[in-house]
């Protein structure tokens, strides 16, 4: 039996995986709902395979992946995600998980992936593989942002208003607006919502 730890904060997914693994060669060894809890559970349960959600509170799946990769040991890791932006795709690509499965793909892919990973192979969802290639190309072509512009993009991502951004950077609101329009032109977005959506990709985080 392969012992599996499911790390996902969404109860529906966790319960569904429980049902899906029932009657298979996989044994559900434990569950966790946050990044920190996952690290504790990995230490305690010592699973063979970790099904790891990317979006979790208190330390994302990518944080957990990085920490486990840094220790050079631990279980095989399959990232389970409902969607990643370009920045997350590039990070995941660098950290080389054993598998990546899209929650929105055919659920049969998950079991196929787990089989491959158990056999020592890597299995990346075809859609994720294609999007990662595209993200790499975009990253090569992307205009580079100045440190100030990166700072501003980060603050927009946090949902701050121009007035708050101006206060944080110690400039006037007019200056913030000028900076923002320059960034809009540079990265080819029309408004701050689009900018916030693409922040991860632009900042590479």
């Amino acid at each position: 039996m392969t012992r599996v730890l499911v790390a996902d904060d969404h109860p529906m997914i966790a319960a569904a995986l429980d049902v899906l693994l029932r009657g298979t060669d996989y044994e559900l060894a434990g569950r966790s709902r946050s990044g920190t809890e996952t690290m504790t559970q990995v230490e305690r349960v010592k699973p063979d395979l970790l099904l790891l959600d990317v979006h979790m509170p208190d330390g994302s799946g990518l944080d957990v992946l990085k920490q486990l990769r840094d220790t050079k040991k631990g279980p095989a890791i399959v990232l389970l995600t409902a969607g990643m932006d370009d920045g997350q795709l590039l990070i995941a690509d660098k950290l080389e998980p054993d598998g990546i499965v899209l929650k929105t793909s055919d659920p049969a892919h998950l079991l196929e992936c787990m089989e491959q990973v158990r056999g020592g192979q890597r299995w990346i969802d075809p859609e994720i593989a294609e999007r990662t290639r595209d993200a790499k190309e975009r990253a090569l072509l992307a205009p580079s942002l100045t440190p100030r512009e990166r700072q501003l993009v980060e603050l927009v991502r946090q949902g701050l208003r121009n007035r708050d951004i101006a206060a944080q950077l110690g400039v006037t609101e007019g200056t913030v607006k000028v900076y923002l329009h320059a960034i809009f032109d540079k990265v080819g977005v029309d408004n701050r919502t689009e900018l916030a959506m693409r922040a991860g990709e632009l900042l590479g985080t």
Partner: protein
Amino acid sequence: MTFSGPQSMFKYQSGRVIALGRVMLSLLFLVSIWLDQSQPAQAATQTYGLLLFYVVFAIGLAALCWRNWWLDARLAAPAHFIDMAVFTAIVFSTNGYTSPFFLFFILPLLSAAIRWGWRETMLTAMGLVLLYLTAGLLVAGSEAFELQRFIVRSGHLVILSAILIWFGIHQQFARLFFGVDELDRRLGRDEEPLSRAIAFAMEATRAGSGALLLAVVDDHRFAGIRLTGGRARPVRADQPLMREPIAAALFDLRRDHLLSRRSDGWHRFAAASKLLDADVVRDIGAAQGLIAEVRTGTEHGWLVLWDIPDLGVDFLELGAELGRGAGAILDHDALLSATEEGAAARTRLSLARDVHDSVVQFLAGAAFRVEAIMRGTHSGGQVESDLKELKRLLIEEQAEIRAFVSALRRDRELELAEAVEELKTLATRLARQWSIDCRVGATNDDASIPIRLQLDLQQLVREAVANAVRHGGASRVDIDLGVDQDLLRMQVKDNGSGFLPTNGDAPVEPWSLKERVDRAHGSLSLFSEPGCTNLLITLPLAGAA
């Protein structure tokens, strides 16, 4: 021809006030010397001649400058010197330092203070004191010199001069001073900002027409609108309207005149064709009027006003203020729009996150369950009970989505009482789902809350109840809501073991709750004791739109 009442006749018309004052004073001099048998004490013929000349000069000057701002500015300095010379001559011819016409010095002093700044007022005062001394001493000659009276009169002159110099200094800072918020209240935000800025400037100057052209800084493609006869039409220019940075100027294209103020406060007389792009101004429809520079955080341009019934030199200062005011209106509007856009963007991002967290995750989970059931069919598993469970979950999710969509369909705000009613429905559903007793109440529900908060509340209640049951084993959850000033307060009380799980596992933090509360810029505190857990969440009502 429009009727000008006394108030509007002299509003922003200091030139007219000075000219009229000069006429009245000169007439008063002539009449009082004629009536006073003891005057003129010296050179009677020359004095009458001078006074007659001065009356004619004063009337002629007033007539010339009454409706001509260019001549008013052009002749201001020469007239000023003539005033001072006449003052000296009158004092000289009417008993020197004891002259009853001594107070005439007020006219040149006042006109310097009104027209120019403190430097010119000070120079005038110094000149007048010197002239008074000279004239007084010349007349005194060998007669008995009344030192006391001379000192008292010199004192009058110095004190009044000092007051007027002060007035001259402070006149520079006496801006129109208006708050943009006040303007918003007066003008409203229904019109678009360019029209509002023009309408505001037209109202202040009583101009019949106005235009405002703007371009992004460093760009020369200007665009804007023209308001004339209550109708707006777009205007464009591919060149700057002014060739030099000038805060405000009066122009007359027919006579090729342009009057502005130099940085040292003196008038600058120039040919309009030299400093102004006359073709563009003419295309806009203006022949004579006021042009003022407008700057905003990102744009620059010009405000042009024409068909002004009583255009005068004072409009230079007024124009500079209106230019600043128009910039402030546009900046203020941009700020409000950015705030609204920001709030809308935050709501969209938040909604996208909610849809992702609930609907997408649920559907993904449902697909996993279907896959599990399909596999179970082959291996003879408990298909029927799994299908029943999936059906229950789908029906529940359907109700959640319906509530979510109905909240989105609403206006920007809803009554807290309505929100509480919906949360009660949700509580009934959650009670059934978790087999617990779940109640919702409100202590002060006559407030309005933004839609965004209602969506947050629904998610928070779902997560709080799930936490209470899963981690604390609670069988009863009571939720109480209320509004205190600018804060929405929610208390969730349950009879579970709190975040110390009953099975002895490590304490669990309410991460998902905390994350959502942080996103809404609220605060969360947790008090836990055996058999009672109290979760207190406060969310700001402002900024949650």
